[in-house]
């Protein structure tokens, strides 16, 4: 079974984003960029499926600027077999990305597509669900456990009330939550090996997909700051405050 995995190049999760002075967006110049953490979990899950003999080939796809090839190389170093870069310098929204993945899914015919549940830059949490809709397949979102059994996948999902388990016919789309696995670090030999793994570069037009954004960003602002608090010296002061707030 072929597994298709999506990876996005985003601001590193340890970096505090800064809003540009002109309010046009977040300043990404000279900022450390990394693979979206949920996508690392997606790559790891695919690699584990391959190690178990369930997956035969892992194809990793990124939609983004030329630099996104670095993100693909990271996935290849973790154990993916080949990459596809759909290169564009334009901003791409989840709907456009889902259409591109749909086109690639039709070409590649994977048994399973694994995506991160959300990217930590736009926090949309949409692409996997949209791909499943366009492709006409089942979706196992926010997965904390994935098990392939014959022509179906059982997905345990992290939901507001606890956990929920669904069974989906394959092919299907799974989106990863934090506790699905702990992604590995690529070893130096594997990083070296990844350099010679194939990466195909395509353009959105090659798939006949119009990526024109549907949303226009009017402005981006810092959230309203909280006013500075006070240090209290003792538990008694906390007790007094809780009583004042009417909760104790």
């Amino acid at each position, binding site marked *: 079974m072929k597994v298709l995995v999506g990876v996005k190049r985003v*601001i590193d999760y340890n970096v*505090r*984003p800064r*809003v540009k002075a002109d309010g046009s967006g*977040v300043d990404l110049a000279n900022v450390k960029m990394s693979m979206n953490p949920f996508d690392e979990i997606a790559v790891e899950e695919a690699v584990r499926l391959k190690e178990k003999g369930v997956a035969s080939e892992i194809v990793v796809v990124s939609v983004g600027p030329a630099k996104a090839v670095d993100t693909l190389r990271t996935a290849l170093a973790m154990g993916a077999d080949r990459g596809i870069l759909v290169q564009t310098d334009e901003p791409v*929204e*989840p*709907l456009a990305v889902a259409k591109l993945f749909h086109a690639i899914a039709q070409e590649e015919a994977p048994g399973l597509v694994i995506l991160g549940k959300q990217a*930590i830059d736009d*926090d*949309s949490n*949409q*692409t*996997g*669900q*949209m791909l*499943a*809709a366009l492709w006409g397949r*089942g*979706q196992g*979102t926010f997965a904390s456990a994935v098990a392939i059994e014959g022509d179906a996948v*059982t997905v345990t*999902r992290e*939901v*507001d*009330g*606890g*956990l*929920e*388990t*669904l*069974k989906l*016919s394959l092919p*299907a789309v799974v989106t990863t*939550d*934090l*506790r699905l696995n702990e992604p590995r670090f690529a070893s130096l030999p594997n990083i070296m090996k990844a350099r010679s793994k194939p990466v195909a570069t395509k353009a959105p037009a090659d798939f006949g997909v119009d990526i024109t954004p*549907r*949303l*226009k*960003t*009017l*402005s*981006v*602002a*810092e*959230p309203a700051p909280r006013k500075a*608090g*006070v*240090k209290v*010296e003792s*538990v008694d*002061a*906390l*007790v007094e*405050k*809780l009583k004042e*707030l009417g*909760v*104790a």
Partner: protein
Amino acid sequence: MKVLVWAEHDNAALKDATLSAVTAGGQLGEVTLLVAGAACAAVADAGAKVAGVSAVLLADDAVYGAGLAENVAPLVAGIMGEFDAFVAPATTTGKNIAPRVAALLDVMQISDILTVEGPKSFTRPIYAGNAIATVESSDAKLVITARATGFAKAAREGGSASVSPVSGSGDAGLSSFVSAQVAVSERPELTSAKVVVSGGRALKDAQTFADTLYPLADRLNAAVGASRAAVDAGFVPNDYQVGQTGKIVAPEVYIAVGISGAIQHLAGMKDSKTIIAINKDPDAPIMQVADLALTADLFTAVPELVSKLA
């Protein structure tokens, strides 16, 4: 504008998240509530009484009982022919279903809106809430998820809408429900509690977490939350997680115990009215956003707090 609002429920009761979505939808236009489920007529009746709801559509069918997106999304997309906007609460249910609806309608969804700025423009948090974007849609229809903390809850009484049946295409044959492990708790629900007591990795283990924080939560009738670190370490189940990818809470009082305050955690609680932090590190990020910061060893401070509140 005609607005279809997704009712979040468990086939028996209407959840509070619905009430915030009704308020968000009401700021756009006339609200019709969609109740999709199995043997859920009581939910539709409750929905009809909600202030601001002008009509209720009831899709009562076994195939909608588990809320499977594969079955529910075509139902919603079909109904959307008569509506201009679809609004779902930004819960795990709404986040699962709404993008599937959006794709079927060829609409770019607007996730997690905080405010309605105009008929097609909204604010939403990006980068874990470190920036707030104002976006305007160019799509013919709107598909939106609304963050509960951004909108007041509509009153459960005051409406008198009529309930009409609606049906969809039934079972898509792609997915089936296997099981659910739903946490049962005597405490208030995390996302709607007036007071939340949250713990971090400093609580050491599951037993210590429970022994230390539950007496305080009991005393304050508080919900219990946790940082990602505490959930990853297995102190508490996943549904306790507060943060960028967990639950977003904005209680009257949020008490963070032994939580350092990574930006991903702050994203889930920084809209709380009053934040109280107890941490032995005076320089921890949580101490910078707290209204009241107590630098102390939590293992002496929390029991002392419990005894002095008794």
